[in-house]
């Protein structure tokens, strides 16, 4: 599948934004984050900024962005519509949670309920995003049980790295944040490794034999002549192909940037000899590297995905 920049940015940025939002809500509720103005302002600005920029970016790849409100109507059947509705609805409790935190320095009472609601809705929104992909039967690299947990864990994981950095910046760091980050990094690493093993080994359900029904004649089916000489929409959209050797290099980069390096940097700060400034720099480094890593991971998520319509064009799945 064609790795469109708009969609890669949308899923990674909004994933991190919702992840951070959910963690901000949880840790203000548990009292580990104080209800102070500047912390609240910066944290909410980063979280809502990532979510907003992601959602705007997702509209960039539309043929008719001005009609986007229509995309909220079919929530009964469409995961994309559900995601859109929930993304917009989440702004209501999140807005109130943010107002309480930043302007009233209060995260209790009604604002606590809004924080809890924000956390739940953020998680469900990321789940709905993942289901847009996981529900597509023609793409076996997406239509599997690894995709929704991977989206949720990677979103929360990148959000947790942002949280650690913010907490360092404002001097409100708690080891709980670091431990959570490490736990999420390890879970994400295991999930993504299992995902790659799955897509590398699971047999493709469809072949050119089933796609044409000519498998019934016995033997394999081969493409003899293309229906057209130039690339059409299908080939440009679904026919993106990445060489296996490039894919394995990029996977290595993901292992390194998204998991190994942030894990090392986050673990390092538990060593008591590390001065606060160095710990802050390490948490910033973890954010930057994981940002590059998650963009590569999402690029691969698209580039490695194969679509059954390409069977007709002589591709294997």
């Amino acid at each position: 599948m064609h790795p469109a920049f708009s969609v890669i940015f949308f899923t990674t940025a909004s994933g991190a934004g919702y992840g951070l939002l959910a963690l901000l809500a949880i840790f203000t509720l548990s009292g580990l984050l104080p209800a102070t103005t500047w912390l609240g302002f910066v944290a909410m600005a980063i979280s809502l900024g990532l979510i907003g920029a992601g959602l705007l970016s997702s509209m960039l790849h539309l043929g008719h962005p001005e009609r986007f409100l229509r995309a909220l109507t079919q929530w009964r059947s469409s995961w994309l519509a559900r995601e859109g509705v929930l993304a917009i609805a989440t702004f209501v409790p999140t807005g109130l949670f943010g107002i309480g935190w930043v302007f009233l320095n209060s995260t209790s009472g009604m604002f606590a309920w809004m924080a809890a609601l924000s956390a739940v809705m953020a998680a469900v929104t990321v789940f709905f995003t993942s289901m847009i992909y996981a529900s597509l039967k023609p793409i076996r690299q997406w239509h599997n049980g690894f995709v929704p947990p991977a989206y949720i864990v990677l979103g929360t994981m990148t959000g947790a790295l942002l949280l650690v950095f913010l907490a360092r910046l404002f001097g409100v760091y708690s080891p709980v944040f670091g431990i959570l980050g490490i736990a999420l990094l390890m879970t994400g690493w295991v999930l993504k490794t299992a995902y790659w093993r799955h897509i590398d080994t699971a047999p493709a359900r469809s072949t050119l034999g089933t796609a044409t029904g000519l498998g019934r004649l016995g033997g394999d089916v081969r493409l003899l002549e293309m229906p057209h000489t130039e690339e059409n929409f299908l080939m440009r959209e679904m026919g993106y192909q990445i060489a296996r050797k490039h894919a394995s290099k990029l996977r290595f980069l993901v292992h390194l940037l998204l998991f190994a390096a942030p894990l090392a940097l986050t673990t390092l700060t538990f060593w008591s000899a590390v001065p606060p400034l160095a710990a802050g720099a390490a948490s910033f480094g973890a954010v930057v590297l994981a940002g590059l890593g998650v963009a590569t991971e999402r690029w691969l998520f698209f580039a490695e995905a194969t679509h059954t319509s390409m069977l007709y064009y002589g591709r294997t799945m």
Partner: protein
Amino acid sequence: MTSLPSARGPKRLGLVIDLDTCVGCHACATNCKEWNTSGHSAPLTDLNAYQAEQRGVWFNRVFTFEAGGQGENARTVHFPKNCLHCEFPDCVTVCPTGASYKRAEDGIVLVDADKCIGCKLCSWACSYGAREYDEDAGVMKKCTLCIDKIYNEKLPEADRVPACVATCPAKARHFGDFNDPESKVSRLTRERGGYDLMPETGYQPTSKYLPPRPGKRTAGASLPREEGGRDSAGKFLRWVDAVLSR
């Protein structure tokens, strides 16, 4: 509504494509383009039409495959592919706007271009690659089963069939109602073992393909061989051969 119609109407319209008789002439694809570029989903935009890197919308594409073995055992099968108007199409249910819909009365799957936001998700959900995006109009387009032709009362009744069916010189394409067990498409499907493409999707295509009939292979005529040529040649030629072979 992009939920599928819960109550289905009396008709289930679709095509039967006979892979035994298709000669791969692309007339169906050409006539489809001709009719539909001024029909329900008009125009079928072509960009760079007269230069390199042409990009255009087509509802019907004709592939050619080899199947059934290797070498002289292999069969060449021409394979037209277009929307199959599935019974349970995900291209409809994934649509966030209600632009993609399946008609209850006859099962035809259509796009309402005025509602489409051009997110392309429906094309991702179609296993068969039946939908093509019009990048000029910014909306998705697809086979309409010539809805503007098959119900057109201004046309003589015999012409109220999809353009691809009307034009096929090999009579490899048939149009009809699969809910009527006595319709031509139902009979052909029954008698010739009509099948679904990629049944594993669960989309349950309405349109069916008829498999190529088992081929009858006779020993082909062979070219005259050189061996024994000397014996059958005349006296004079034998003398020429002897002289030249010296």
